[in-house]
């Protein structure tokens, strides 16, 4: 599909409201959702759209997030467009049925507003929730800013429903940092969104009583593995589809975001790798370091599942030193989830640059440009002295 660029409509919105606005424009058939800080603004706002008749959506005000995902599964299997939104503990409560959604190949869309996991109780941002669902078979995109939260909210529908994919999909925006921060963005006219997402024709609607189907059978040693193998293959297909949808969306808006994005990366010797809103902070640090004559650069991971390993390896191959920043902690691991992916990508493509892993920002701890500048200075030191030292580090935490 080649799209004509349309004129955007500038607005100032919080991330949650930008997502709710995208949901209004997408007008899904069913939304089932439960309130949880910092996602609540999305369900509140969307409820307003339902009450005022601005959407035709049937809204199911469920009694828990497990019920939310369970109702999404029923509604999606029935044969229509389904969306939900959640955060932190809500996603943890859904955990069992996240796997049912992906194993049943249901293109459910979930807008995730990142929040840490208890205990201790903390409502602020880290990626423990969405990274925690890393292996559940959902496609995952991460949003850098409110504009991208809006843009990704629209693109994930196309990705999830693509016949080569048919997998549930999230995009994740950092709780409070994006969710509750007002930023300027350009939204699309309603009809451009309608046209971009198109109509959804389910391949196997449960509601088709003329062709009765059994969804969710018992599947044991003789077929289960093949079904999981097919699911893995669908994830591989998603890599191309994410890129293709991003390209089309770029044609429409002028904003091209693909699987990964570099910032001042081409000639960079020292590179940080991360996902989410800290990308914006780190861009500022890159500029500061460049002013000091350090060839700093940045690699943003927009698509975490499937992980674009070849592209990441190519982007990082010949750097002098790399720091991967993880906003979640895999207790007892040598390195943390994003770093694990990056090292895996490099190793499998024959590269072994000097590399360290920082855990940062847990429970909403502020991450500021000066801290990221320190990371670059550490990378310069590692290169100068030739000694990496401890791979696993913690940023801005009291020992």
């Amino acid at each position, binding site marked *: 599909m080649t799209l004509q660029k349309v004129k955007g409509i500038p607005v100032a919105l919080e991330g949650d409201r930008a997502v709710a606005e995208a949901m209004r424009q997408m007008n899904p058939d069913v939304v089932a959702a439960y309130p949880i800080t910092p996602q609540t603004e999305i369900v509140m706002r969307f409820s307003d759209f339902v009450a005022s008749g601005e959407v035709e959506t049937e809204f*199911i005000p469920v*009694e828990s997030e497990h019920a939310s995902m369970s*109702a999404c599964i*029923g*509604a999606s299997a029935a044969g229509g467009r*389904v969306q939900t939104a959640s955060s932190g503990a809500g996603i943890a409560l859904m955990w069992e049925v996240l796997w*049912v959604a992906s194993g049943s190949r249901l293109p459910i869309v979930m807008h995730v507003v990142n929040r840490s996991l208890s205990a201790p109780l903390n409502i602020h941002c880290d990626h423990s929730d969405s990274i925690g669902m890393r292996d559940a078979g959902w496609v995952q995109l991460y949003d850098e800013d409110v504009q991208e939260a809006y843009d990704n909210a629209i693109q994930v529908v196309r990705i999830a429903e693509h016949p080569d994919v048919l997998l549930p999909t999230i995009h994740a925006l950092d709780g409070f940092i994006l969710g509750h921060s007002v930023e300027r963005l350009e939204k699309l006219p309603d009809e451009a969104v309608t046209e971009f997402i198109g109509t959804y024709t389910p391949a196997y609607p449960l*509601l088709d009583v003329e062709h009765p189907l059994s969804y*969710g059978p018992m599947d044991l040693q003789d077929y289960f593995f093949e079904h999981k193998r097919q699911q893995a293959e669908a994830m591989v297909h998603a890599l191309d589809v994410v890129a293709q949808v991003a390209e089309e969306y770029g044609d429409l808006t002028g904003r091209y975001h693909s699987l990964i994005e570099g910032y001042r990366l081409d000639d960079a010797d020292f590179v940080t790798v991360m996902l989410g809103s800290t990308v914006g902070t780190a861009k500022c640090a890159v500029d500061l370091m460049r002013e000091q004559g350090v060839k700093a650069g940045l690699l943003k991971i927009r698509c975490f599942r499937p992980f674009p390993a070849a592209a990441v390896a190519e982007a990082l191959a010949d750097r002098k030193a790399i720091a991967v920043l993880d906003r979640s902690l895999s207790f007892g691991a040598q390195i943390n989830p994003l770093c694990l992916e990056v090292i895996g990508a490099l190793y499998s493509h024959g590269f072994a640059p000097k590399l360290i892993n920082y855990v940062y920002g847990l429970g909403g701890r502020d991450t500021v440009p000066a801290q990221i500048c320190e990371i670059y200075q550490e990378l310069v030191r590692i290169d100068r002295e030739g000694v990496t030292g401890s791979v696993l580090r913690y940023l801005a935490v009291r020992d």
Partner: protein
Amino acid sequence: MVLNLEPISVERDLLAPGHRLCAGCAETIVVRQILHAVGEPVIVASSTGCLEVATSPYPYTSWRVPWIHSAFENAASTISGVETMYRALVKRGKIEDKGLKFVVFAGDGATYDIGLQFISGAMERGHRFLYVCLNNEAYMNTGIQRSSATPFGAWTTTSPVGKETPGKTQHRKDITAIFAAHNIPFVAQAAPHAWRDLMSKAKKAIAADGPSFINVIVPCQRGWRYAPGDTIELSRLAVDTCVWSLYEVVDGEWRLNYYPNPKKPVTDWLKSQGRFQHLLKPENKHVVDILQAEVDRQWTKLLERCKVS
């Protein structure tokens, strides 16, 4: 309500034979009776359990109607989603209104225990569906573990009989009354031997404008320890001893559907099944007395609710 057995006897079963449930299992009897009463077009959801695993071993299925299973606790939420999508697509003119009906079949573990919140939520929201509890009074699919539907004194593998405990030491909860307290249009208890009563209730339930609930006792020869051929007799005995009562709550009005005469002693019930054999020993007479007293108390309470004197 008039129910004519002759056309039903030649009507196609919506649950096909060839499934893997045990000989003498009451579940298929009840499912077939209810689906005959409800009729097509119907969509069925099941919780994880005996019925689900025995009717859907991939690549086979016994379901001649659209059927969905998601997990153990969430059949009510799942059918909420299916029913809501149906309304959404009809409203938007994307599909035609064919008068689809929605039925859940779930076990007592899924209903009394792990799924209680989900059912409560779906009932409060008012989705139009019939929820049937196939109540064999324990987790039979995993091998006879106690649930909150298991009666006082019963042996199960997690309420074993030992020096310290004579089987289960708690009374079961009254889940039917709990759902009646949701003020939904139709709630009932039924049993497979009383097929006319059961099928009439299914017809009333599915015609209700909102959620409905039927709790059906389903004798389980493996878990209750009796000969497979005695299933229907066990169902009858449950009702005649008042360990299981047939009633309905229609728009809040409680109605008794069967008054056993004579009301048989609970020992008749205990003698019929291996799971209660330990209670027949003299040293456990006090347990039997407690059980009889509870059965009498519940029966009296039911008569009061149904205004039967």
